[in-house]
């Protein structure tokens, strides 16, 4: 899709009139195109207005269902406001890392399930009937897989033989929301074989990602380039 073509997708995107692949591609474009972000935002408001012409009073029982439903769910924490990052983590290091990692998909054996009687959060996700798996082979830097269960609403990343992050840096996890926003989802522990439940709502996330970020700072926006992307539309 040429550049001028992709700009014209704003309308279809705002109306959800795109398939998953187009959505993912357009959301990548949105990250770098302020014009399209602004146009999509105004067109989304417009489509919301269209709903005015479809007003139908719902049955009163729906209100009860909604309100009893929310009483059992805790709202997600806010994204903590960023202090301005003084200096960027040198892009060269990240780029070198990406070169080493050489992202490519590969399949390998799933991990053996735990023998524990009660399921951990990670096991609940991995063993869910709707678990979706995306694996990324990082070459010599190790392997990583993200498993997401929409019904559990969570995603889990498992690493094998993962190379350590550069000194003073750490691997940070992200979930890409349906709106194309990258939301911080926690950090990877500094160990080669780890299983971590991503923070945040993974039910509607379109992808997960790993970036390298300065250690100990709040993570608000991913530092590019991204080390690994787990695109849920490519999940098996």
């Amino acid at each position, binding site marked *: 899709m040429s550049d001028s073509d992709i700009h014209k997708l704003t309308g279809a995107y705002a109306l*959800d009139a795109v398939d998953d692949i187009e959505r993912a591609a357009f959301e990548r474009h949105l990250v770098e195109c302020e014009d399209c972000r602004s146009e999509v935002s*105004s067109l989304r408001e*417009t489509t919301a207005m269209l709903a005015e012409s479809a*007003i139908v*009073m719902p049955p009163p029982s729906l209100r009860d269902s909604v309100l009893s439903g*929310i009483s059992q769910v805790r709202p997600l924490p806010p*994204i903590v406001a960023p202090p301005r990052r003084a200096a960027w983590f040198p892009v060269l290091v990240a780029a070198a890392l990406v070169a080493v990692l050489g992202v490519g998909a590969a399949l390998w054996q799933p991990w053996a399930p735990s023998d524990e009687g009660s399921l951990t959060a990670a096991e609940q996700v991995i063993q869910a009937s709707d678990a979706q798996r995306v694996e990324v082979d990082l070459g010599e830097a190790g392997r990583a897989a993200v498993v997401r269960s929409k019904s559990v609403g969570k995603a889990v990343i498992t690493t094998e033989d993962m190379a350590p992050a550069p000194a003073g840096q750490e691997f940070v996890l992200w979930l890409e929301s349906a709106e194309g926003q990258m939301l911080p989802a926690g950090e990877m522990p500094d160990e080669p074989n780890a299983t971590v439940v991503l923070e945040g709502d993974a039910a509607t996330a379109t992808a997960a990602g790993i970036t390298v970020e300065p250690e100990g700072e709040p993570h608000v926006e991913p530092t590019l380039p991204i080390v690994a992307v787990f695109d849920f539309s490519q999940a098996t």
Partner: protein
Amino acid sequence: MDHLKPVPDGVPSEGTPSGGSQPADGAAARLASLMQRSSRGDEAAFAELYDATSARAYGLALRVVRNPAQAEEVVQEAYLDAWRTSSRFDPARGSAAGWLLTIVHRKSVDRVRSAEAATARDAAYHRETEPVEHDSTVEAVHASLDAQRVRTAVSGLTAVQREAVELAFFGGYTHTEVATMLDVPVGTAKTRIRDGLIRLRDAMGVGS
């Protein structure tokens, strides 16, 4: 328009709809504030938000998924999502109603598409959406005015733009499917949808 809104006690003020470019600033600010209170776990605020938006949400879901039971499921899921992710709502980036209805629409579209993947779309015959009951709620008063503005704006579209926008928005079809249904090139459908929406936006005076 003041005579239209003797607002009962305890009902959120919906502001004064005027024909102007920002029809309901008061209502929009109110909804944004309810959303922010919801993110702090305020269930009463969320109930109020539900009351102020549920007819739009349900009507939209019903138009897309067509089956009332499924529309209820979609709406319930959407509100649950909105509650859970309410802290991610940013009033600087758009209205609360827009944010919420975006979730509703996306879930509706996902529902019809996944249902199609499993079986053919059920409910072979679909009643056209029933006319709005203009009951006494503030939303209905407010909405009927807004609905009038929407109708006026829609009537300003060309026939082909309207067809494309309606198939995409209420039909839940992708722009590629719309192109096939209308027997036009994909680029043409994409352009009609975008041009149509831009014209609607400008006619309704929606800010970005």
